[in-house]
C-alpha cells in the first residue's frame, strides 16, 4: 500500500544568473520518516530546502502537502504548513532565557489582568524539555550561557512548540561532539516517534546511516536517486555523490621523520583556561588534540597564539623563549592560527581573495607602509595556483566562495606569511569531502616541507587519519598521550569517555 507523502515536490527547477541550481528535481517525504539529503557543496541541497521553507520561490515545479498542491512563496507560508527549519546558524535570542526562547512568538499564559504567568511558562518549558529527555537544561538559563550543543537542542525543542509536521535540519551536528550527537539523535528519534517527518542534511554519511530511513542524492542540481538506507553502503553513496571512488583513506603518513623540537609550551594559562598546560611539538609533526566540546581544546590553541589574555607560562620556539602577548607576537614568532569559525574570525568576508591572503603579511609585501601591488599579485597568484583556489580570481570577494575554498584562503593567508607552525582548529568544519581531502593534502605538504601542525578536531577519523601523536584533553588538562601505533578511533574514544 502506497503511503501518501506528507511533502512531495515535482519537477522543481531554480535558476540563478549563470547557474541552474536545481534542475527538475523530484522529492518525496513520507510521514514519520527521517530522510537524508546528501550531495557535495553546490549540489543544490540548500536551494532545495530554501524552496521548501519559503526562502526562495522556485521557477518551475509544484509542491504538494499531503497530496494537495500548495504555494509556498514566503517563509510564513511554510510555517503555516507546519514546516520548521533549523539552520546551521543559530536563530535563538541569546539574551533571553531558554523558556522565553521556546515560546517566543507564542501566546503566553496570562492572568485576567494580562500579566504573564511566568511560573507557568517555566513549568511548561520544563515539561517540554523533559519530554525530550533534556532534564539537565535549566529553562531559566540565558541561551547565551548554554553550550553550542544545548542551543541546538533548544532549537529543536522550539520546533516542537510550533506544531511542526516537517522539520528540516541543516547540518545539525556541526560543532557537536560524539556524545552530544548521541543526545541529539535521541531527541530526533523522539520526534520521529511523534510522527514528525524530518529532512536531514549532513556532510557526515555515517550519521545518515545511523539515523536516517531513506536518502536522496543530489549532484550538480540534479537528483541522482532515492534509496533506502538499508539498501546502500557509505561507499555507494560517496560514489553517487561525487561520481568517482575517492573513499580510500590515505592513512599514513608517509615516512615519519619527525625532527627537533620546534615548539615548547610550559605552564601556559590564559584567562579562558582553568589549568596551565604543557606541550611540545616537533618539526614535521602533526599533533592532534582530541577532546569533547568545552574540554578546552580550542582554548589551548588560542592561548598559544596569544589570542586570549595570557596569565602565565612561557613559550619557546626553536628553543628560544618568545614573549607572546597577542596574535601579532605569535605571528612574528612564526605561528599561524586557523580558527574554528572561519566566517566569524578567519576571513574578512567583504574583502577579496587577494586582500585576505595578504592580510597577515602586509609588512612583507610592502615597504615603509606602502603596498607593492606587483609583489602582492605575484604572491597571491602563486598561492591561488598552489592551493587550487576556485575561482582563481584574486579580486573575487571571499563571501562568494564555497566553504572549502574559503578555508583554502585562510590557509593561504598563513602560507603567504611563511609561518612554520600552524594551529588548526577544526580545519574541515563545514566543507565537503573533496575539499577536505585537498585540505589534508595541503597540511601534509606543509609538514613535508618542514612545517609543524597542531590540530584540533572533533572528528576522530580525521585525527587518526593524519596525526602522528594525539593528546586527549579533558577540562583543560591533557590526560593521555597516544603515539603512532596506539592511535585508533577506538583508543581515542575510550580515553575521551573514560
Amino acid at each position, binding site marked *: 500500500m502506497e503511503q501518501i507523502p506528507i511533502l512531495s515536490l515535482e519537477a522543481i527547477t531554480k535558476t540563478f544568473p549563470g547557474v541552474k541550481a536545481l534542475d527538475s528535481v523530484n522529492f518525496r517525504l513520507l510521514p514519520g520518516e527521517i530522510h537524508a539529503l546528501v550531495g557535495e557543496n553546490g549540489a543544490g541541497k540548500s536551494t532545495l530546502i530554501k524552496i521548501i521553507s519559503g526562502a526562495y520561490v522556485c521557477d518551475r515545479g509544484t509542491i504538494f502537502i499531503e497530496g494537495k498542491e500548495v504555494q509556498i512563496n514566503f517563509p510564513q507560508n511554510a510555517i503555516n504548513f507546519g514546516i520548521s527549519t533549523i539552520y546551521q546558524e543559530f536563530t535563538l535570542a541569546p539574551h533571553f532565557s531558554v523558556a522565553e526562547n521556546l515560546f517566543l512568538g507564542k501566546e503566553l499564559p496570562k492572568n485576567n489582568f494580562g500579566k504573564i504567568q511566568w511560573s507557568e511558562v517555566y513549568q511548561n518549558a520544563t515539561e517540554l524539555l523533559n519530554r525530550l529527555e533534556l532534564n539537565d537544561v535549566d529553562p531559566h538559563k540565558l541561551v547565551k550561557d548554554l553550550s553550542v550543543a544545548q542551543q541546538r537542542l533548544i532549537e529543536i525543542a522550539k520546533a516542537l512548540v510550533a506544531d511542526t509536521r516537517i522539520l528540516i535540519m541543516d547540518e545539525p551536528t556541526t560543532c557537536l561532539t560524539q556524545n552530544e550527537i548521541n543526545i541529539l539523535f535521541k531527541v530526533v528519534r523522539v520526534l520521529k516517534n511523534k510522527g514528525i517527518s524530518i529532512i536531514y542534511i549532513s556532510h557526515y554519511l555515517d550519521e545518515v546511516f545511523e539515523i536516517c530511513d531513506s536518502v536522496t542524492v543530489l549532484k550538480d542540481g540534479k537528483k541522482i536517486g532515492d534509496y533506502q538506507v538499508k539498501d546502500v553502503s557509505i561507499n555507494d553513496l560517496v560514489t553517487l555523490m561525487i561520481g568517482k571512488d575517492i573513499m580510500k583513506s590515505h592513512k599514513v603518513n608517509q615516512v615519519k621523520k619527525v625532527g627537533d623540537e620546534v615548539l615548547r609550551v610550559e605552564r601556559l594559562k590564559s584567562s579562558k583556561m582553568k589549568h596551565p598546560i604543557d606541550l611540545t611539538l616537533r618539526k614535521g609533526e602533526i599533533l592532534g588534540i582530541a577532546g569533547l566540546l568545552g574540554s578546552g581544546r580550542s582554548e589551548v590553541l588560542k592561548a598559544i597564539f596569544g589570542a586570549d589574555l595570557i596569565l602565565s607560562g612561557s613559550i619557546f620556539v626553536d628553543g628560544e623563549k618568545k614573549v607572546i602577548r597577542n596574535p601579532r607576537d605569535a605571528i612574528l614568532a612564526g605561528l599561524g592560527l586557523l580558527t574554528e569559525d572561519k566566517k566569524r574570525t578567519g576571513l574578512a568576508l567583504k574583502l577579496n581573495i587577494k586582500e585576505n591572503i595578504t592580510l597577515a603579511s602586509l609588512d612583507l609585501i610592502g615597504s615603509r607602509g606602502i603596498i607593492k601591488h606587483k609583489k602582492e599579485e605575484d604572491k597571491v597568484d602563486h598561492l591561488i595556483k598552489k592551493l587550487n583556489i576556485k575561482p582563481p*580570481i584574486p579580486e573575487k570577494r571571499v563571501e*562568494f566562495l564555497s566553504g572549502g575554498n574559503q578555508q583554502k584562503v585562510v590557509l593561504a593567508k598563513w602560507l603567504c606569511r611563511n609561518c612554520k607552525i600552524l594551529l588548526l582548529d577544526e580545519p574541515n568544519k563545514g566543507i565537503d569531502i573533496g575539499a577536505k581531502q585537498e585540505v589534508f593534502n595541503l597540511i601534509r605538504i606543509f609538514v613535508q616541507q618542514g612545517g609543524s601542525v597542531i590540530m584540533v578536531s572533533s572528528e576522530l577519523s580525521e585525527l587518526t587519519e593524519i596525526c602522528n601523536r594525539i593528546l586527549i584533553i579533558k577540562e583543560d588538562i591533557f590526560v593521555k598521550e597516544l603515539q603512532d601505533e596506539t592511535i585508533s578511533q577506538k583508543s581515542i574514544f575510550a580515553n575521551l569517555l573514560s
Partner: protein
Amino acid sequence: MKGDIKISKANSQQESKNFLNPFSKISIPRQLVLLLILIFMWIMMAILSPRFLSVVNLSSIGISIATIAILAIGQTFVILTAGIDLSVGNVLGFVGVVTALSMTRGLGFIGGILAGIVVGTLCGFTNGILVGKGKLPPFIATLGMMGIVRGIALIISGGFPIIVPFEAFGFLGAGKILKIPVPVIVTLFLFLAGFYTLKHTQIGRKTYAIGSNEEASRLSGINVSWQKIFIYSLSGFTASIAGLIETARLFSAYPTAGSGYELDSIAAVVIGGTSFFGGEGNILQTFIGALIMGTLRNGCNLLGISPFIQQVLIGVIIIGAVYVDRIKESSLI
C-alpha cells in the same frame, strides 16, 4: 550575482568573467551611477539657471562644500571601520577658537595654526583611545567629545566670536591660486592623499579589514587598537583643517561654528555609498557624495527654493541612497 553564493564548480568559470573587475574596491557601477546623477544635476541646473555654470558660481559651490568635504574624508575612514565620528563638527568650531585665541595671545600666525591642528588632532586621538583601547562604542565616545569640545570652546571664548588678528590668514579662506579658490585646492589635495592612503598603503588595507571583520584582523596580527587610534586622530586632523578654513573664510572664530556639520559629513559619506557596517566604500564616492549635496544646495538657492525644502530633499536623498544599497544587498542573499 545571486547564484554566486551557491556557486558550483561547473559554473565558476563562467561566473568569473563577470567578476573580472580589477577595481573590486572601487566598484565602478556605483561610482558611475553617482557620477551620472551629478552630471544630470549639472545639466538640469545649467538649463534652469544660466548663472549656474559661471566661474563665480562654480567657485562658490567649491568653497561652500570644502569644509564638509574635508570633514567627510576623515569620516570615510572612520565609517569604513564600522565606526562613526559625531564630534567633527564641534571640533571644527573648537579648533577655530583655539587658533584665533592663540593668535591673539601671542603665539603668532604659524603658532596659532599649529595650535589648532594639534588640539583638533588630539581630540580625535582621545576618541581613538576611548574607542580603540577603552572599547567604548564610537557613537558614545564621540558624542561625549562633541559636547566637551563645544563646552570648552564656549568657556575659553567667553561665548563671543574672536576676530583673527592676521590679515594673511584670510588667504586660506578666500584666496585664489590660478583662479582656483584655496579651500578647493586644499580639499582636492586632501582627497588625493586620502585616496592614495586607502588604496596603496597598509593603513588603508587595514582600515577595510577592520571594518569587514575586526576579530579576523586581530588574529591576522593587525594592531586593531592602534589602527583605530590613528583613524580617529586622522578624523580629528581633517576636522582641524576644516576648522582653519572655516575660520579663515569668516575671518573670525565662532565658538558655535560647525554645529550639525558632522551630520552633513556623514551624509556625504553615505550618499557616496560607503557601507555603514564598514569594510566597503571608498573616498572617491565620498567626494562625489559631497558634490551632489553641494550642487543640490546651490541649485536650490539659485532657483529660489526655500532652504526648508532643501533639508527635506537631502533627507530623501540620504534615505534613498542607503535604501538602494539595502535592496542590492538583500538581492544577494
